[in-house]
């Protein structure tokens, strides 16, 4: 072998962390929730997830290879994460072809039109989900097929909103374990929290966004429940944190790197915004669930937040 003398500007070593690894960690963190859903809702969960992942990866490959005629980057696993997150935002009973359309929107419109990984202003999986929610409202809110035993019909959020279920009737322990109706990934609060702890431990995410989102929802819930007094003061916030996509959104969707602010301060503003919007939509909006829209709206605000929340420069006291 020929001996070469290497030359490069400093630094000459690297921490060793790679994009694939980060994506791999996110996938790993999502696995417990996937298992809970599969256990509760049946094998169809795996099928739909598989379809979502496969189509996301395929579309990314096809677009990069044949439309952009560039290097393909499916190796970075980001398409897998998008696919999995998209699947997590769909009901288990959804027809597979809708999933494929969702994947096309997520990758094609949500990600590739803006220049691929890191350039997308909106979370691709959410773009896909919101498109499907508007294009196929019936299928997207069909909570009658593939549901946990003994539960059918609407999600808890919708039921509570419609007044069909009282907060005091809800069994919070079974909610933690995933015994409720909803999208594939949003049930199983405990599993999602576990995934969140893993991501925090691996330093893939920082605490700022999840805590800001959930904290705001909690505080808002308490404020709203104050006039009612009594048990409602803990029931309302607890219910809102566990029901719907709150945990999935706060831990996995809102923390998407390219669509969330860069500084810790910005992350907190962003998180608070998501929490507020979610609660406002949930309590007074037309939809029972507002997490997707809240994240989507705050995604749009991210460049502005980045502009005004600069990191604190060394040697300066307070710089906004």
């Amino acid at each position, binding site marked *: 072998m020929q001996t*070469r*003398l*290497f030359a*490069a*500007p400093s630094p000459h070593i690297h921490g060793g962390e790679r994009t694939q690894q980060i994506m791999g960690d996110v996938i790993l963190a999502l696995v417990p929730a996937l298992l809970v859903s599969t256990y509760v809702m049946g094998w169809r969960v795996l099928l739909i997830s598989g379809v979502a992942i496969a189509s996301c990866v395929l579309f990314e490959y096809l677009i990069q290879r044949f439309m952009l005629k560039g290097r393909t980057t499916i190796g970075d696993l980001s398409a897998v994460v998008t696919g999995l997150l998209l699947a997590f935002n769909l009901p288990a009973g959804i027809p597979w072809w809708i999933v494929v359309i969702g994947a096309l929107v997520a990758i094609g419109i949500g990600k590739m039109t803006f220049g691929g990984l890191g350039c997308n202003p909106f979370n691709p999986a959410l773009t896909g989900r919101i498109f499907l929610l508007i294009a196929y409202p019936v299928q997207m809110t069909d909570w009658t097929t593939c549901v946990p035993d003994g539960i059918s019909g609407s999600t808890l959020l919708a039921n509570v909103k419609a007044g069909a279920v009282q907060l005091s009737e809800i069994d919070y322990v079974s909610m933690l374990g995933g015994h409720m109706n909803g999208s594939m990934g949003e049930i199983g609060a405990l599993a999602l929290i576990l995934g969140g702890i893993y991501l925090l431990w691996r330093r893939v995410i920082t605490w700022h966004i999840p805590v800001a989102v959930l904290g705001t929802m909690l505080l808002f819930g308490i404020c709203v429940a104050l006039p009612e007094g009594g048990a409602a003061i803990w029931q309302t916030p607890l219910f809102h944190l566990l029901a719907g996509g709150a945990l999935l959104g706060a831990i996995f969707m809102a923390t998407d790197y390219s669509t969330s602010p860069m500084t810790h301060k910005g992350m907190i503003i962003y998180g608070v915004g998501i929490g507020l919007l979610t609660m406002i939509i949930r309590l007074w909006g037309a939809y029972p669930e507002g997490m997707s829209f809240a994240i989507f709206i705050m995604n749009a605000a991210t460049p502005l937040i980045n502009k005004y929340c600069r990191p604190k420069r060394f040697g300066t006291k307070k710089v906004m």
Partner: protein
Amino acid sequence: MNELLLTVLTLSLLGAVLAVVLYFVAQKFKVYEDPRIDDVEKMLPGANCGGCGFAGCRAMSEALVSRDNIASLYCPVAGGEVMTSIANFLGKTAPEKTPQVATMRCGGTCQKRPKVNHYDGALSCAVVNTFYVGESGCAFGCIGYGDCVAACQFGALTLNEETGLVEVDADKCTACGACVKACPKGLFELRKKWPKNRAIYVACRSKNKGAVVSKVCKAGCIGCGKCAKVCPFGAITVDNFLAYIDPEKCKLCRKCVNECPTGAIHIENMERLPKEPKPAPTVESKVETAKNE
């Protein structure tokens, strides 16, 4: 019926009021602009390359229209003809400039100037230049990561993978000077453009002594001065061990080419002067020159 009429009337009234408002606002904030600026801008190539020294073609046209003496304004991309027609249009005297072409003055191909280390940083000449001399030992030669290629808007520069050097396509080059600014080693020079893209230049910028140059590059100028002695027009000067051919004085006689012991004087689109066979290195450099063309 009444309702319909009301709607139509309201909208028409609204339209009329807004039109009046808009008219007054437009009058109030109207900025007078010489209409000739637009015309001149249309005549310019619209490349916005900055070769004229202005921020873009618009700024250049403003200057052309507003200044009385436009002798110092010249668009290298458009060339003399267009400048004359613009000057005629404006009733001013056209600037006179001979057409120019960018010339890359390094002949250190991979064979002539072997790489002695392996660069592993960001692929940019400017980055290389921030911290060391480059992959060959020559501190003056082409780094070969194509900052100039990226800067050229006209696709006139290509990086030849085989030689590791950048080549100029004289037909596409507009002499805008972007490469002159982009090259951290200052290898580009805008030189007089001869008919049929003929050219002659010293393809080396090394100000090192001959012994130092020949250690790292077999095609470099060693500052021997033979070329300067043979030049009948006094066009060649040797300064800091580096020969330079003044394009204004040179008559393309090519006597210097045969004299150069390292083949550092390059000719393009011309034949060498016939002469008695030269010793080996020159023949080799002849092949090299031919290959480069």
